């Protein structure tokens, strides 16, 4: 008996380990797809290190991270929305209009340079801002999912309309007298690191975990991969997409709070033109424009790549006038890298 078990057990365990090996290799390959930008980031950091001694300092790196926070929240939102096969261009206007509306509702109607309505107490500015974001997302969702309008054009219209609303309300000026509750999150430092970075890290962790380990998170991949199949599997496709659009706009409004707090004012052009960078960061981070593919972590590496390029260029003394050109060039280069790193066609 013992002889036979001795004979069979090693064989069985060998077979087991072999299957485990193949499984692990496959998982690793899957991970690699998400990590395709990590080498690029490492190379950028090496270049930064060579170019300037100021690069690898805590101050500089924290600065880069803080500047990435607002953009990265939009990228997080776009990641969710793209994975379930939709698009929301109006995010870049939400980041500006939501704070303006919130501030307009709470600031007193006399005394300051910017006249508000004074309808709500000052502490309500943050909740109101988030509420405005949620409403924008809900309206977009209504137009796209209930009236069955084309999502691209609806959100393109919303982008223009909301930007116009912001300009009309703020009379085209920056709003500098902000309630202190509103600027706190963008300004505060926790444990020596800006609060915005902590919050962003937390939101990315929550978002990434939800996509990886929650049924509703996985439903986004199913919807983006094949909406009809998702429906036959009992997933409430429209409801989930609607919630995702609301969460997306909510994140954009929250990015607006961080941005306003960071700079101490709401600028009239806040967020203007960002959507291209957001899409670029998301797509070079491995999220498919056709839906069903990508991860939060990949999208994060996309943002970091773009921000590091700008930082390294600045430190290297490249004239800022070249920034736009380089930004565009790096997007294309990053796309080429991720195309060949993942070995998959980008359609």
């Amino acid at each position, binding site marked *: 008996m013992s002889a036979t078990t001795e004979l069979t057990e090693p064989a069985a365990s060998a077979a087991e380990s072999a299957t485990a090996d193949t499984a692990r290799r*496959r998982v690793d390959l899957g991970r690699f797809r998400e990590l395709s930008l990590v080498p690029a980031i490492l190379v950028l950091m090496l270049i930064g290190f060579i170019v300037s001694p100021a690069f690898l300092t805590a101050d500089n790196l924290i600065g880069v991270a803080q500047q990435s926070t607002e953009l990265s929240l939009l990228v997080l939102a776009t990641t969710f929305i793209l994975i379930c096969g939709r698009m929301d261009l109006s995010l870049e206007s939400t980041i500006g209009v939501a704070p303006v509306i919130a501030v307009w509702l709470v600031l007193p109607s006399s005394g300051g340079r910017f006249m508000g309505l004074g309808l709500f107490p000052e502490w309500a500015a943050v909740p109101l801002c988030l509420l405005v974001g949620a409403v924008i997302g809900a309206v977009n969702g209504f137009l796209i999912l209930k009236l069955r309008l084309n999502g691209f054009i609806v959100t393109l219209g919303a982008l223009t309309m909301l930007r116009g609303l912001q300009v009309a309300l703020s009379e085209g000026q920056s709003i500098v007298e902000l309630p202190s509750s509103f600027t706190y999150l963008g300004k505060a430092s926790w444990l020596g690191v800006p609060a915005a970075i902590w919050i962003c890290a937390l939101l990315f962790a929550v978002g990434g975990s939800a996509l990886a*380990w*929650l049924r509703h998170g996985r439903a986004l*991949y*199913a919807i983006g*991969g*094949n909406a*009809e*199949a998702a429906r036959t599997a*009992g997933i409430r496709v429209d409801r989930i997409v609607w919630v995702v659009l609301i969460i997306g706009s909510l994140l954009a409004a929250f990015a607006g709070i961080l941005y306003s707090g960071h700079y101490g004012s709401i600028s009239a052009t806040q967020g203007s033109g960002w959507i291209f960078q957001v899409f670029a960061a998301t797509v070079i981070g491995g999220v498919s424009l056709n839906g069903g593919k990508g991860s939060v972590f990949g999208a994060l590496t996309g943002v970091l790549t773009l921000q590091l390029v700008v930082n390294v260029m600045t430190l290297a003394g490249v004239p800022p006038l070249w920034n736009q050109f380089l930004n565009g060039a790096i997007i294309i280069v990053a796309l080429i890298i991720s195309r060949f790193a993942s070995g998959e066609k980008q359609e």
Partner: protein
Amino acid sequence: MADTATGPEHPAPVAEATGISKRFGATVALRDARISVAAGESHALVGRNGAGKSTLVSILTGLQQPDTGNLRFSGEPAPAVGDIDAWRSRVACVYQRSTIIGDLTVAENLFLNRQSAGAVQRIRWKQLRLRAEELLGEYGVAVDPAARAKDLTVEQRQFVEIARALSFGARFIILDEPTAKLDARGIGRLFDKLRDLQDQGVAFLFISHHLQEVYDLCSTVTVYRDAAHILTAPVAELGHQALVEAMTGESASVAAVAESRPPAARAGSEEVLEISGLTLPGACEELSLSVRAGEVIGLAGAAASGNVQVGEAVAGLHRAKEGRISVGGRSVHTGSVPSALAAGVGLVPEDRHLQGLVNNRSVAENATLTVTDQLGPLGTVLPARTRAFAQRMIQDLDIKTPGAATPVSALSGGNQQKVVVARALATDPHVLVAIRPTNGVDVKSKEFLLGRIRQVADGGKAALIVSDELDDLKVCDRVVVMFHGRVVAEFDRGWKDDHLVAAMEGVGTPLASTVSGTDEHGR
């Protein structure tokens, strides 16, 4: 009480529908239709396109509610509409369109939307994989649950769908044209699997356009025609002829078309299409073939044999690594569709949705897509001429359409295929290459299309039918069989089904005549 009385000796049918009617606006999709599937039975549902099969499937699976009628599962009334879980525990369904999501793993596909116990509970991936392994093992499906679904073969995906559909506990499964995308070998394995399931007591309703499959697999057949139930009978008692008659309402058969034509001696006529030493990377090697005027040649082969690629190469879709293709003595520049068109090649592509039709455009536009240069002077396309041309095509091919301006997407599958054929014929080609020309087409249209291809050849042209369907190949004067990129056999008229199938499967013993046939055209 009554249930226990009828229970053991005479179990209630797993699914029974009576008096089902359903209309969509003005069209009646089902009129007082009925069907009854006994426990453990293999039941076939056949009918031409538009007979109401799809509507019946969506009613049986709870996706649509009938206007009138009664639906019972194992003697109990059907669950409420919208209670998806209740429906799925009574009836499983593998839909015609794949509901597998390619970018997710097999395990996740199997447990989609039930990966975890509760909505806010985290998914335990390792456990999910084990559950998937168990489920796949239960149905004997050899697929790695960690593999991404898009890396599976069509056949494996189908098995995964079946396993998933049955995992909700139903003992009755509907298979809506499960064989449409499989090659002969895959179909064989699917049938083995279905027989296994049947031994375990699972009943199924099998929907197919291939009558031979019905005879191979099923014990009972129900025929629908024009939205109504025509007959239900044991398959063994219903001959081929009678079944086709029931489906079409008139007597006819594909075989009759083929056999009515004498094998003409066409040795003297000129060679219209000549393929010599053709090598396509990954598809075929050193392939030679010639088709004479007035001939219909079948190029048979299973899914991976490379026969489709050869057909496509003739039409200019693939560049050859070596070898020559010439039409009417003129050499064709391989890999160039315009060159092939200029040489006089017409193509009926394999997948009409992907390669054949512009869905939302009209029948007229689709039919004239290849001949826009003939529709007006100096690159213009005159609507009147397009209409006239399309009108001629519609008559010529007997396309059932409300008008030339109707979008093709509104036509039935058979008529859509006719539009594709019309387009291939519009250029008046010397060589017609038809790849699986009757795929997803009802019996009547099939017969018509094959007859039309025959007619092209009779008009002094040449036709090449690339297919693995025996019905398609029956109209051919000669059938050349490919296996793994090589010609392995050649059959003249009067071949036996099993010989041809064996050759396609690569298990045939090459007969003396077939070998010599191959050599004749080899180099």
